């Protein structure tokens, strides 16, 4: 057989493999859409679910998901950003910072069930926060911090050294250079990282079962007092 023929066979084989994967994904998606779309209605999305009978909607679940997502991002973005700026701009390369990086690496590979159990023990029991949105958001923060820090650090590092030199050579201080030159230049990368992180948080379930609880109280969407148990804004209620 000559090289050309082998090449053709290999390409055909790769096409076939790719085709199988696309086919599987496509049929899954088609099935979900085919069964699901007829069920989705404005009412389904905007009414609470019902216990002990069929029907009802998912408004509470939907709201809780977004609420958790926003809270988690609010807590984890400043933390990650600070850590990433420290690691990429200020940290000297030594044993301590190597150690910190290793820890981040290890944390990022924790299974989410472990994070959930940790959250259960620490936030729910130890700190007495109970099954609550807040416990959930903090567990998700733990889950999210390492990867978010990594992606932000990577996007900061991707900005060439020459940009830092340019800022410093103009007489900007280290902080001004980071703040006014590096961060804006890295912003697209940071945003991408945040969006990916948001996707992960939104799809996370295991860590929440142990921290945010499994059933939400009846929410009253006209009650915006964050201290009331039936208010959607209350962070101490279960979700």
């Amino acid at each position: 057989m000559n090289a050309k023929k082998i090449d053709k066979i290999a390409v055909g084989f790769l096409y076939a493999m790719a085709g199988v994967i696309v086919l599987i994904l496509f049929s899954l998606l088609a099935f979900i859409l085919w069964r699901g779309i007829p069920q989705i209605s404005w009412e389904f999305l905007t009414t609470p679910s019902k216990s002990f009978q069929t029907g009802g909607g998912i408004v509470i679940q939907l709201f809780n998901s977004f609420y958790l997502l926003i809270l988690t991002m609010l807590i984890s973005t400043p933390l990650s950003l600070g850590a990433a700026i420290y690691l990429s701009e200020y940290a000297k390369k030594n044993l301590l910072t190597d150690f910190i990086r290793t820890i981040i690496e290890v944390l990022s590979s924790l299974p989410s069930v472990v994070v959930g159990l940790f959250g259960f023990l620490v936030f729910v029991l130890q700190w007495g926060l109970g099954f609550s949105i807040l416990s959930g958001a903090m567990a998700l923060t733990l889950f999210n911090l390492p990867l978010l820090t990594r992606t932000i650090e990577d996007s900061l590092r991707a900005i060439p050294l020459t940009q830092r030199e340019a800022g410093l050579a103009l007489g900007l201080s280290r902080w001004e250079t980071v703040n006014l030159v590096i961060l804006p230049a890295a912003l697209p990368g940071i945003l991408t990282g945040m969006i990916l992180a948001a996707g992960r948080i939104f799809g996370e379930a295991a860590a929440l079962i142990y921290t945010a609880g499994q059933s939400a109280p009846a929410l009253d969407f006209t009650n915006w007092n964050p201290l009331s148990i039936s208010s959607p804004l209350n962070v101490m209620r279960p979700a």
Partner: protein
Amino acid sequence: MSKVTIKELNLFYGKFQALHNINLPILKNEITAFIGPSGCGKSTLIKSLNRMNDLVEGCTISGEVKMDDENIYAKECNINLLRKRVGMVFQQPNPFPMSIYDNIAYGPRTHGIKNKQIVDELVEKSLRKAAIWEEVKDDLKKNALSLSGGQQQRICIARALAVDPEVLLMDEPTSALDPISTAKIEELVIGLKKDYTLVIVTHNMQQASRISDKTAFFLNGKIIEYDETRKIFTNPKKQETEDYISGRFG
């Protein structure tokens, strides 16, 4: 008159000594050129004039660099102020990824000039001094990265001039550019002499002889010879200098 005076400067990268006992005056309103083979310490010396070496871990320095009468390595020296007074242009053009206008306005704004009209004037003045105003004046909102390399380098010169430095350091500013852009930059550098003190590192012997007033020839971290450019190129005192400029090594 000497604007910057380097006295008994020794510089180490870790254990490696990159500069040996450098003594050199840099005269006001003149162009001083540093020449010498690769790795001989030209960039290291030019970077120690605005303390960019501080960024390098393990870099230690002894000796003195006096600007006017102030030792820039003294403890009380304000580094940010020093770098504002001693501007720098790098080998690779490195404009910020933003509009031409913002590139120039950036330094002055961060240093506290907020009045839009004053900033506008500064931008125009700096771009004119860097001989690029005519090419970009209708397009100041354009991203600086979309310009050609030669234009970008002139933007960087304008950016450095906008913070009103007294000394301008240039480390091989034309080595990434074509001959036409190079000629433009050489011409503009000569024009800057009346307002600024300039130091330029170059590998291009013709460039050094065309534009500089004084030339220092480096070898292995030492200054072998320093004199008027004309003398260095027509009648060098040291054999090594002659060998280098006539292209026998380096």
